[in-house]
């Protein structure tokens, strides 16, 4: 068994408005000189520390936990899961 850090990123699905990201873009970034930026999306990140036999198993286990406990709301959010050793 090895210890892994698993990053869980929760963000709005496409089509779900993200007023916080829009505000950061329109009222901060685009008011500066950074005109090449076209989109900013906010997200929430959770970092799990977990003991599993390998990276793949760690990711699978964290995905199961997220689904079972509704860590993200599948109606409006999508989740990206990535393990690091």
């Amino acid at each position: 068994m090895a210890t892994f850090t698993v990053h869980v990123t929760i963000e709005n699905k496409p089509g779900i408005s993200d007023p916080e990201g829009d505000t950061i873009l329109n009222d901060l970034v685009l008011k500066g000189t950074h005109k090449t930026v076209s989109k900013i999306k906010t997200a929430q990140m959770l970092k799990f520390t977990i003991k599993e036999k390998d990276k793949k198993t760690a990711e699978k286990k964290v995905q199961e936990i997220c689904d079972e406990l509704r860590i993200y709301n599948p109606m409006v959010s999508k989740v990206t899961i990535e393990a690091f050793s």
Partner: protein
Amino acid sequence: MKVGVVVFPGSNCDRDMFHVLTDVFHLDAQYYWHEKSLPKNIDAVVLPGGFSYGDRLRAGVIAAHSPIIQDVQKLAKKGIPILGVCNGFQILVESGLLPGVLLKNNSLNFMCQWTNLIVENNNTPFTSQFKLNQKIPIPIANGEGRYYVDDDTLKSLRKKNQIVFRYETVVNGSSDRIAGVCNEDGNVVGMMPHPERAVESEINPIDNKPSSLIFESLLTTVGVKN
């Protein structure tokens, strides 16, 4: 008639609700801590507003896993009237008892203001004494009150008459200006505005009678008053 007021860590409208149920409408209300069970012979359950678990992760999601929610689900299946107000609504949504989700208000502000609701469904235990399209002056107080459903679910809510209250005007960006919904059977109702802050003339500068009908409806439903 016994009404249970469920208390979670971070509930802060439980006492207001208890006061209204007991002192204004003379009901036999009792608090139930979220780790306890609800009695099987209870007549109605209210999930009050507040900030259960400090809104951590997402408003209502942690409370939705509380032991008492299993009892709430059983009672809901039996047809017992269940009302969720504000955070209570968020908990009902997160526990799957009601459809949809409550997102941050479009303004990103915590909104604390008077609004007007329109009654869209007067066939629930909490709205039976209203006329359709009746207006209710009532306050909101929330940061995550923007009700969202996808288009298919919205169509289904309309078809099954599950939209209970709508805001008269655009308030926070909610889908179809929805302020409250019910389950398919109509006995579980969730609403973002606070009826417990609107039923007494001392604290309602506009008109306290419409909000009172939410509780009058409950009394009528369970046969206390006709």
